[in-house]
């Protein structure tokens, strides 16, 4: 117990504290920006980020991963906030947490294995595009000052790290915000600032039960949003956990992370924050800055709140252009640029899955729909591919006037038509033998196709004998436990 406490919290103190501070500084502009996307006061996102980061540090299943208010979640709330207001958002956040905890207990974290790599890439790219698109309103119908500020901001973010000595010590997004705020205040530019977007936190968050009527009507309003939020939150969290796993060469507890996200969202909802989830970009920044344990996540949350409370007079002065620059950086950093290069090398089906995921998300502004479309499409492509692994050979024995068909491979909904076509029903023979001992029948469609074949042969006047049906259809029985045994694999791979 002490040992795990030690490794999970205090094994990398210096790196974690430093990384936590870097992440907190990067989180502030993002939390403000995501609140603005969702259409709520910046304080809602800041409280949420504080609460989620702190809670997940204790209850999450992936040490070193950063969770807070995110763009993916903010995009799902827009309509709810517009039509019903903040209180319903808080209620929806609570319900989201409940769904996520249930998902954790049902061990749905394991379902991530159905989400193929191309869907993950599509999700990430779509997220980047959505974050970028969310910045466009700030860049339309504005004076040239805003464009200049944004361009200067991007310049600072990408070029500052090359400045000797200080470049590696100060987070460049922070430098961008400080410089642009300073310039805007000094010149007295009349451009939009964070203060124009709504209220900032002036106290510690307080415990609040959402002010909504507790009835079925409320439930029906928030239910669809909560479901979407829960799914998207878990998806992004699981994907981020995988990324952090890879980067740090360690493992995470998926189901604990699901429950943790739920608890964190309930906490956020009760403290007046919006729903959030794990953040890919921030988690990468954390790992890059040397954060590895739970301490880094906790530091990020606590330091974020301290900064916000201390700096509240200054935060309102931040020009929106500076935030836009930071968010463009986040969007560029999130986008998987390698996937564009890979379009040439990867098979067409993979590319289609990725592109469809992106298109559906951008069209619906809902990451859950995109993932659903991607997963469905990927499964169809897979079924189609596996369907090719079926062959029927036949030989004729003149002495007994017997035609023997040997079926090898996978027979299921996708290959059953091909299975039927392989039989020559027009041939006039006395006996037909269908040898299935090296075939697998995966579903009822396959059995139906066999029945059809047998009936057709009988109508043509042949006597039909089916060999090895029991072994072949053993796979239909949905007792997955059997397939998990080591020798079951041999049976499936090598025939019977």
């Amino acid at each position, binding site marked *: 117990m002490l040992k795990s406490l030690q490794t999970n919290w205090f094994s990398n103190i210096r790196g974690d504290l430093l990384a936590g501070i870097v992440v907190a500084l990067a989180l502030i502009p993002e939390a403000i920006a995501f609140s603005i996307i969702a259409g709520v006061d910046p304080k809602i996102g800041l409280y949420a980020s504080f609460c989620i980061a702190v809670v997940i540090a204790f209850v999450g299943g992936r040490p070193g991963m950063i969770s807070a208010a995110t763009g993916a979640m903010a995009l799902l709330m827009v309509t709810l906030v517009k039509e019903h207001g903040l209180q319903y958002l808080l209620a929806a956040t609570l319900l989201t947490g409940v769904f996520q905890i249930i998902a954790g207990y049902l061990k749905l974290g394991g379902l991530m294995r159905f989400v193929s790599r191309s869907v993950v890439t599509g999700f990430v790219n779509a997220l980047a595009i959505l974050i970028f698109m969310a910045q466009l309103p700030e860049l339309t119908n504005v004076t040239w000052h805003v464009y200049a500020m944004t361009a200067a901001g991007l310049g600072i973010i990408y070029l500052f790290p090359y400045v000797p000595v200080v470049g590696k010590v100060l987070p460049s997004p922070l430098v961008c915000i400080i410089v642009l705020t300073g310039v805007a205040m000094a010149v007295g530019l009349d451009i939009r600032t964070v203060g124009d977007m709504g209220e900032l936190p002036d106290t510690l968050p307080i415990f609040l039960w959402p002010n909504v009527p507790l009835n079925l009507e409320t439930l029906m309003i928030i239910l669809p949003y909560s479901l979407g939020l829960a799914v998207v939150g878990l998806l992004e969290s699981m994907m981020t956990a995988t990324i952090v796993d890879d*980067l740090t060469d360690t493992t995470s507890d998926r189901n604990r992370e699901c429950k943790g996200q739920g608890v964190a969202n309930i906490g956020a909802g009760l403290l007046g924050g919006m729903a959030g989830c794990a953040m890919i970009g921030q988690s990468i920044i954390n790992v890059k800055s040397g954060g590895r344990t739970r301490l880094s996540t906790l530091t990020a949350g606590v330091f974020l709140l301290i900064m916000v409370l201390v700096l509240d007079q200054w935060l309102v002065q931040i020009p929106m252009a500076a935030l836009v620059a930071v968010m463009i950086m986040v969007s560029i950093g999130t986008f998987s640029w390698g996937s564009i290069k890979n379009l040439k090398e990867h098979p067409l089906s993979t590319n289609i899955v990725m592109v469809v995921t992106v298109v559906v998300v951008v069209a619906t502004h809902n990451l859950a729909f995109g993932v659903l479309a991607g997963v469905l499409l990927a499964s169809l492509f897979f079924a189609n591919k596996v369907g090719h692994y079926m062959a029927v050979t036949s030989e004729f024995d003149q002495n007994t006037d017997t035609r023997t068909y040997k079926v090898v491979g996978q027979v299921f909904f996708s290959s059953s038509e091909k299975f039927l076509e392989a039989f020559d029903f027009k041939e006039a023979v006395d006996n037909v033998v269908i040898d299935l001992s090296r075939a697998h029948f995966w579903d009822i469609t396959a059995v139906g196709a066999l029945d059809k074949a047998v009936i057709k042969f009988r109508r043509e006047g042949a006597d039909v004998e089916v060999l090895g049906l029991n072994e072949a259809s053993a796979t239909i029985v949905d007792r997955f436990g059997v397939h998990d045994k080591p020798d079951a694999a041999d049976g499936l791979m090598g025939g019977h």
Partner: protein
Amino acid sequence: MTDNNRENGPLQVVACIDGSQAALSVCDYAAWASQRMGDPLLLLHVLDEEKYPARTDVSGNIGLGAREHLLNELVELDQQRSKLALKQGHLMLDEAEQRVRADGVDRVNQRQRHDELAGSLVSLEPEARLFVLGLHGEGSNREGAKHVGSQLETVIRSVHRPVLLVPDEYTEPRSAMLAFDGSETAFRSIELLAGTPVFQGMPFHLVMVGQDTDEKRGQMARARDVLAAQKLEVTQAIRQGADVEKTLHEYQTEHDIDLLIMGAYGHSRIRRFLVGSTTTRMLETAKKPLVILR
């Protein structure tokens, strides 16, 4: 601990080699134990990897393909580090093998594992009869002071085989004593000890600490009978003293005993955290080899 696993090939004496000063003495003691027991010797080096970055970049921005770049960078760093550690480990193992062969052991194996020490010892348990570890770890000699190896407690708590903890210098053990408390666990230890040939032909002391009562005398006699049946030369003593650790050490010095055998960690970690444990204190003050029985 019985020989349940005998069928899976002979059980081995596992010597845990690292870069500390104690490594040579671990080799010698392991060679001694392997010869006394007639078991082959396994030299083990565990690459307990550093999980934390050596270099950090706090620029806090993410550029094009940030994830891929970072992954490549981290993988490369780890690879360099591990390659070096692997090579160093091979050298250490080779040196250790030479040493134990010179000590007269001819059945020697080497093994390297990527894991933490306690974890890899637990996974080796089915093929191990005894683990030999240095009292002072790699970290201790750096600071100059003689601290107990940082992982000893975790190891002792997790493995269920006897552990021989050795000091930095080797002297061949010529006598042994068992710290005996009359408990059922202690009687199981007695049976285990009676079953090995290690203590044949050396004076064996059976020591209890506490009030001299009839109950203790009875337990003592029972233990003695078991040991005497295996023709061990047993001396028994009951010593009074409030401080168990100090009393045992006094007895050890008085009779010039080379090897102290004791059970370990009868209590939970919580209790240890609050009141400390005899075992930990014994580890901290030991100057001669210790056998810890679980």
